[in-house]
């Protein structure tokens, strides 16, 4: 009994000592590995979040994925690659901003495309139904449509 209590005392102390630690996920980019971090916690609230690695690209509604992400974890490449990478990782926020016709993701995309922010906002807002025709669109569809709309 004494040993068990001593051990538990040491363990609790260790848990606290470990407090300022912050684990890095070594799988690199994407949110998949980050999502699992919660499992090490007191209440694994995030345990139910699944990383879906079977999709070729990010589909609407999957925040977590590693596709299309630069292996160095950096914003890189030409305009089209950057737009795709950005949309893959920010699709939900973009969908929201597109539906409302304003927001940080639209400003960012305007920057990447070197376009006027207002034009980008208006065009995405008016073409929301084209960008998101149904709930199963993926980032590649959205990127291609986004390009078509911006060029029109």
């Amino acid at each position, binding site marked *: *009994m004494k040993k068990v*209590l001593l051990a*538990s*005392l040491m363990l*609790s*102390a*260790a*848990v*606290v*000592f*470990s*407090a*300022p*630690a*912050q*684990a*890095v*996920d*070594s799988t690199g*980019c*994407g*949110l998949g590995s*980050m*999502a699992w*971090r*919660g499992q*090490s*916690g*007191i*209440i694994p*609230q*995030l345990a*139910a*979040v699944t990383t879906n690695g079977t999709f070729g690209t990010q589909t609407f*509604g999957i*925040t977590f994925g590693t596709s299309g992400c630069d292996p*160095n*974890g*950096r*914003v*890189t490449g030409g305009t089209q690659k950057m737009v795709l990478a*950005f949309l893959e*990782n*920010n699709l*939900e926020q973009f*969908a*929201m901003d597109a*539906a*409302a*016709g*304003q927001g940080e993701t639209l*400003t*960012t995309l305007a*920057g*990447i495309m070197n376009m006027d922010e207002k034009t980008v906002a208006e065009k995405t*807002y008016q073409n*929301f*139904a084209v960008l*998101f025709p149904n*709930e199963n669109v993926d980032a590649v569809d959205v990127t291609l449509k986004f390009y078509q709309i911006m060029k029109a």
Partner: protein
Amino acid sequence: MNGHGWQFSRVCLYQNGQTLMKKIVLAVGFCFGLCRTAFAADTLADLPEWLALGHYQKGWFGYEGTIGSDNFYVSPEGKNNPLKELEATVTLFQSDDVEKKCLFPARYMFLKKHGLVSTPFPSCAEFEQFKEDLQPAGMTLLFTDAYMNNSSSLFGHTLLRVDTARKGTQLLAHGINYGAWTQGYENSFLYAVYGLAGFYPGGYTVKPYYDIINTYNNIENRDIWEYNLNLTSEELDLFVAHIWEVGQTTTPYYFFTQNCSYMLMELFDAVRPELNLAAGFKGQTIPLDTIKAVNAREGLVKSVNYRPSRQRKIRYRIKQMNERQYDAFLDAITLDLTETQNLPEDEKADVLETAYQYVQYQYVAGDLALKDYRQKSFQLLRARNQAAAGQKFDELKEGQNPVLSHDSMMVSLGVGVQNGDVFEQLSFRPAYHLVTDRGYGFLSGAEIDFLDVSFRHYDKHDKYVLDKLNVLQLSSFSPINAVFQAMSYRIGLDVSRQINPKSEDEGYVLNGNVGGGGTFALSDHFWFYGLSSVEAAYGGFLPNNQWFGAGLAAGMIVSFEKAALQAEVKKVFATDKIGSALKWHLTADYYFSRNQALETIFTYTQNYGKNQNEVLVRLKQYF
């Protein structure tokens, strides 16, 4: 001086003694070039700039470099000898080893500044690509607040952001994170032990800032504070170059000392040695303390920006809803949009946008299946897109800056009466916060009470005693409402002096308890909670040495800007009579200032049919 001079000469000879030509050059040019370098290096190696670039910290046996990777130190003795390291670095830049030279762009800047190198920095494709991707425009220190669901994030986290000059927004900037590579060990029993013992390697990762935002704001629901730094363009170049240098290294990660926040302090020092930040964190490094230290350096932080968590944004939006909007919102999140469609045209967008954010929150929390999530998201957004009028709600822009919170450590002095005996009490707590402490800047309802120790002197028998060592208490009170349902919990482990009311003996008892329950908020200021718990106690003083039990507690937390109060009643049903007790507890605090408070604690216990009571009044000083 002499010894150093000799050592450097030896390096010179070694390096230049390879060819006859060089020998001649050495002999002739001895007092023109190389010798001057030797003299310069001797004094330059003691410069704070060089010491900080090499991450040297002065220990009991001289200098020691913090960085663990062998390849960070060019000289085999470089980890403990800044001079030899400088000599070896000078030699490196005289050599043809481009690959190795490319690892040290910041050291090159130092050598260049002090005339120790005359050749240009080589062309390094990877380093150039790094700078091209980052397009540095500034630096920002980031603080993410506590995450009570992960023991490694209880104290929050710090990381760096290299601001970008790219067109658009800082979403395209990059976060630089120092952390432990714990992959595969997260669920291990030894997780914490490994962390304490420095078994995990610590290393750096780079990620786009939008990824950081997603992780902290949207997945873990933590606020991000951005402290934009005031750096010259030379300092910025040096910072980025030095990140490149350390970015390739690993160092044993000590969770409590050489952790994420500590390493950032060494990075700051490397860029501006007079900041002398790392020296202030020899004992423990709490992330919030490092943020405060950086903010305390004059002129270092030029502006502050707040990025609230998704949950906080949703709460703020809900607060702005009128009654019919709130009703429509509750229906909208179950995909019944009838009420929303009946709203006045200019009230629809806010409801639909909030509902969409809430659905995302639910999905991440695991409360929603992917299929439902997609369907709901899509329909809410389509309806939002069709709403004729736009957003009217304010976005949450202001928060309680953690820099202005009370400090981490606390000492207190007080007097009290226990069952008629007068006593004086001295307490010390190295970390961190209780709900009765001034709440400004802390996560509401979150408690970490660590190694909180109290000593007492009793007047009647003139005796000094250790009264209590609170090894650890962790609590998270999180109000439940129709929208958010998080569990509240409390875990505690302490060693306490206890009086046996029957025999009037006293002794020490190790107490442990784990409890869970719910919290209900009447308003921001009045919270009520209920917890059920399992309890255990052990100690030679106890009849049968130990007892086990179950507890039921009900309490109230009242908090205002200047004062707070916690009242609780707890009934414990135990295997031994001495454990079975009814306890009343009240703590009331009044804050004089950020770091000073007056506290009154009243406890009343019924045990063995006898009553015990205690009142303590104490002054608390945080530091």
